[in-house]
């Protein structure tokens, strides 16, 4: 019988079995303060799991195994329980992502209005497929379900910004602007 698990996953499992990562990450004071603020809003600490992951991700960009362990230690809940939450949500990143995460809507209204063609255009421009990050580390492209702006389809989100009624030209502009923005910010 062939394995149902994808080869990359098998590889990852083998690697982590051979070299289990034991490095202990610590939460920063700022992270702890923000997480503690959430405690008073819920009946128990375990309920803060997703909020805590989001807070830490905001500071670190993504959730590594070490970070996951640090959060689970802090909340005193099993790593497996927190992992089952972390892997459930598409906006919790268990892999490194670029500085700008692009969420391209692929749902019905955007599909009718031509998001597939725009996606091709975006992929050619960035030279990546969905789930990948550009070589310069700026953009990650993700396909996303309906973004709740269907009357302005096709749409995408870049970071926290919505971009509506997308065209070839507007996509070019959005990407160029972001590139320029990050070029300005890089130290040299």
């Amino acid at each position, binding site marked *: 019988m062939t394995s149902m698990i994808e080869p990359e996953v098998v590889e990852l499992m083998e690697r982590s079995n051979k070299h289990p990562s034991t490095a202990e990450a610590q939460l920063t004071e700022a992270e702890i303060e923000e997480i503690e603020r959430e405690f008073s*809003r819920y009946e128990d600490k375990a309920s803060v799991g997703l909020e805590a992951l989001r807070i830490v991700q905001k500071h670190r960009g993504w959730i590594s195994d070490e970070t996951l362990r640090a959060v689970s230690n802090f909340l005193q809940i099993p790593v497996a329980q927190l992992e089952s*939450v972390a892997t459930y949500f598409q906006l919790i990143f268990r892999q490194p992502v670029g500085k700008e995460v692009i969420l391209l809507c692929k*749902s*019905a*209204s955007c599909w009718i209005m031509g998001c597939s063609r725009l996606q091709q255009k975006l992929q050619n421009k960035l030279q990546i497929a969905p789930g990948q990050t550009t070589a310069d580390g700026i953009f990650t492209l993700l396909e996303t379900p309906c973004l709740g702006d269907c*009357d302005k*389809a096709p749409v995408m989100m870049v970071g*926290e910004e919505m971009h509506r009624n997308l065209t070839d030209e507007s996509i070019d502009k959005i990407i160029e602007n972001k590139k320029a923005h990050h070029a300005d910010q890089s130290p040299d």
Partner: protein
Amino acid sequence: MLTNPLTKNIGPENIAADIERYRESGGYRGWSKALEMAPGDIVKMVQDGGLRGRGGAGFNTGLKWSFVPRGADSPSIKYLVCNADEMEPGTFKDRLLMERDPHLLIEGMAIAAYAIGAHTAYIFIRGEYHLAAERLEQAIDEARQEGLLGNSIRGTEFSLEIFVHRSAGNYICGEETALLNALEGKRAVPRAKPPFPQVSGLWGKPTVVNNVETLCNIPNLIEHGIDWYRSLGRGEDAGSKLFGVSGRVKNPGTWELPMGTPIREIIEQHAGGMCDGYQLKGFLPGGGSTDFLGPDHLDLPMDYDVIGKAGSRMGTGTIIVLDDHTCPVGLVLNLTRFFARESCGWCTPCRDGLPWAVQILERLENGEGVPEDLDLLREQARRMGPGNTFCALAPGAAEPIQSALKLFEQDFIDHVMHGCCPFEKVAEASAAV
């Protein structure tokens, strides 16, 4: 007479009505009035007003509230949760309400919480709605500062805190029991019902989950009364509703209209009719998990039971229009991929049935289908239907499939006969000219 209670504060500019602006137009009068009423009378009023849940199922809101245990020996802790997870493909109404008039939702929640005896309420909002979440938090702060939320509100014994909980992108969290698991910090799989959340919900306490738009109906219903509220509807159902249209129409958008507004009026008048060169082939009346209807159904009024009898559902009231240049097989494939991806994996007809349906649809769309595929697809849709799964995701996913197979059967057959997608051929030919 007020005819647009949901959108009266919403102008063309993308700004939120602040508390001053909100109060000028009568805001928080419903809340003041409610605080002088007995909670049970509010429940009765909402029930008699005939408000039906705007989250999709159309259940009578007051009746839902009445299932919450009350009285001295009922659990002292109860919760109210606002479902702001809006992720159903083609649905874009709750975002508008939260971004542009956040106080309306806060006031509706305050009244609902008081009616059921909840002192803590959560707004469960999808993670992508950053602006809406910020504006709601701001509105909560403003309301607290004015003593409309917090401890001993307006000198009464009633206290209420409202918290915004940001989710992180997962359609199944919109299902109310999955949502409760998510709020508890658990993996968001649906729960068995019974017990219903009204009896045992969040952390095992009595809990009411209501949609954003449902709650936004409450303040004016309480302020202006049952007769006024019922008179807003044009047909069987009471109140007004946000209707939306997306797809190839001239003026896609959202409008507050009376319940019972005919579909033709929504699509042709408000949405401006089809774009030049396009004809209406069919439409999904209330989001991606409703059955397709066709041009013959355009004169139906948007009332829950009327759309139900026609073989579909009013769902969220946001219409997706399918035009004659867009492939129905492709659209159904797009929807089924979405549902397959969002399945929580708990039950077999959904976890295995949806990817199977995707495979069949891919085969058909790529021109590799065989005639038997149509029956196979019908069978898959039947197996995903009501009663076979733990929650309503799979039955919802089956709706566009089963109805497309009826309404657009010839298009499915054409894919098999021509060995390709005829719509792509046409598009290629016109692109080549």
